């Protein structure tokens, strides 16, 4: 299960600026305000620190994105002591960002003062939709269809991760040519995966169905994460649809 999460990172990691201009999904994660603690986390009762398996998975995640072993040791030491890391802290300011590209994705890696990271990924196009109105592709969408001045992408996956929480859902959206307003058709099937703690069954909703002059259409998934160190917060991932492209961010 943990190795699978890492596959998500690899998948997300293949995205880049090229993917941004050409296609589909930008993925990010950030802690939401108003964090809550999951009160009934039976699975983590009695635990006061991350487990060995948590550590192994976190180290694999950090190694994948080139966090130095000495930094990893320091981060693990903080977590083992019952503390938290900057990437999980509300209001923590990043110190740097960089992009890691592969054949399938590009990932933006954001680093914080203590060396912890969070990632933002964009899937590169897997195929080009016939008759698409823009260079955007269907990415991991199941199907697509175009009409006069618009293209609809059906059942597209959007996923994000920060090493502790994965969030995702399916989205169907329509890109309207030129300056027409793009819109979200539907969202469903929210997905959450918690490492070093539990992530509650995510809630899913559309915040704004149609793009407008002031911003994008957006949908969001939220989960309450409860870490084994006792900390917890609500994470919210948003998929934005506007300006003839889509992206996902932490809210």
């Amino acid at each position: 299960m943990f190795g699978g999460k890492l596959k998500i990172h690899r998948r997300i990691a293949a995205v880049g600026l090229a993917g941004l201009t050409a296609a589909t999904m930008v993925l990010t994660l950030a802690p939401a305000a108003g964090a809550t603690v999951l009160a009934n986390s039976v699975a983590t009762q009695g635990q006061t620190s991350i487990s060995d398996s948590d550590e192994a998975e976190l180290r694999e995640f950090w190694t994948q994105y080139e966090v130095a072993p000495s930094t990893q040791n320091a981060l693990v030491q903080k977590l083992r002591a019952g503390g938290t890391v900057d990437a999980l802290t509300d209001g923590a300011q990043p110190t740097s960002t960089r992009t890691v590209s592969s054949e399938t994705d590009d990932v933006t890696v954001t680093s914080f003062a203590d060396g912890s990271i969070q990632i933002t990924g964009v899937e590169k196009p897997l195929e080009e939709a016939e008759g698409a109105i823009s260079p955007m592709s269907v990415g991991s969408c199941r199907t697509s269809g175009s009409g006069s001045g618009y293209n609809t992408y059906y059942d597209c996956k959007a996923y994000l991760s920060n090493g502790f929480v994965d969030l995702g859902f399916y989205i169907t959206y329509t890109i309207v040519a030129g300056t027409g307003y793009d819109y979200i058709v539907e969202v469903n099937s929210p997905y959450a995966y918690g490492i070093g703690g539990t992530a509650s069954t995510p809630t899913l909703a559309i915040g704004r169905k149609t793009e407008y002059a002031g911003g994008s259409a957006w949908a969001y998934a939220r989960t309450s994460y409860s870490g084994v160190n006792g900390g917890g917060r609500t994470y919210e991932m948003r998929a934005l649809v506007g300006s003839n492209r889509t992206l996902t961010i932490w809210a």
Partner: protein
Amino acid sequence: MSTSFKIKTALTALAVTAAVAVSAGPATAETEGHEDLRAFWTQYGVSETVQDSLIDKFETTGGFDASSAAAIPVSVVAQPGPADSTANVATYADGSIAVTTLENATPTDPGTISTRGISGCTVTSGSGYATYNGCLISAGDGIKFLSFRASYQRVSGGYAKILSSNSPATASNYGDMTDPVRAYMRYQSTSLQDAVVKYSSVYTSWSSGGSETVYTSLWLTAGGTASVGRS
């Protein structure tokens, strides 16, 4: 092994036997030597060498690449599955696999009672249609399994549709899974969009306390081609 763990294992063994016996599920329910994982992998041709490395990885990290529904496989191969089903075996970079199965249908004549009883998957063909009844849909990665049954219909010159779904079941030897629920349904396909029904459960690992939303889904194209997904 603690008493509570033994109880969980025993209960899960029953769940595995009862619920997923004819799906992609493990052949046994013993966890101490991971015989259940090995039996699952052996069933789908994973070499012993790879199995050894996966066991090492599992004991170190609590999982492997195939464990996430969002992971990208390096290959997907269709092959005969258990209990007269067709399996799609997705192999991941570390050699782990995720298997989805769709039960094969036994033809019956319209208007007759199925020869396989209510637990079997049958197809009844008529003028311009074919109806598949009670077919088992299953998905699993060796650690957690989620299955259900569905009926669907192909229509010549029309759009295929899912008629019903029921009997969801879960099984795991390594964690708790909540009662599965029908999480999403779009029974009618269109020229642009597949019909789909999804069941979900939340898996919580006993060893790590980590949790994950698990899905098994049946997708049906307008032309009536059925496939099984894990998200």
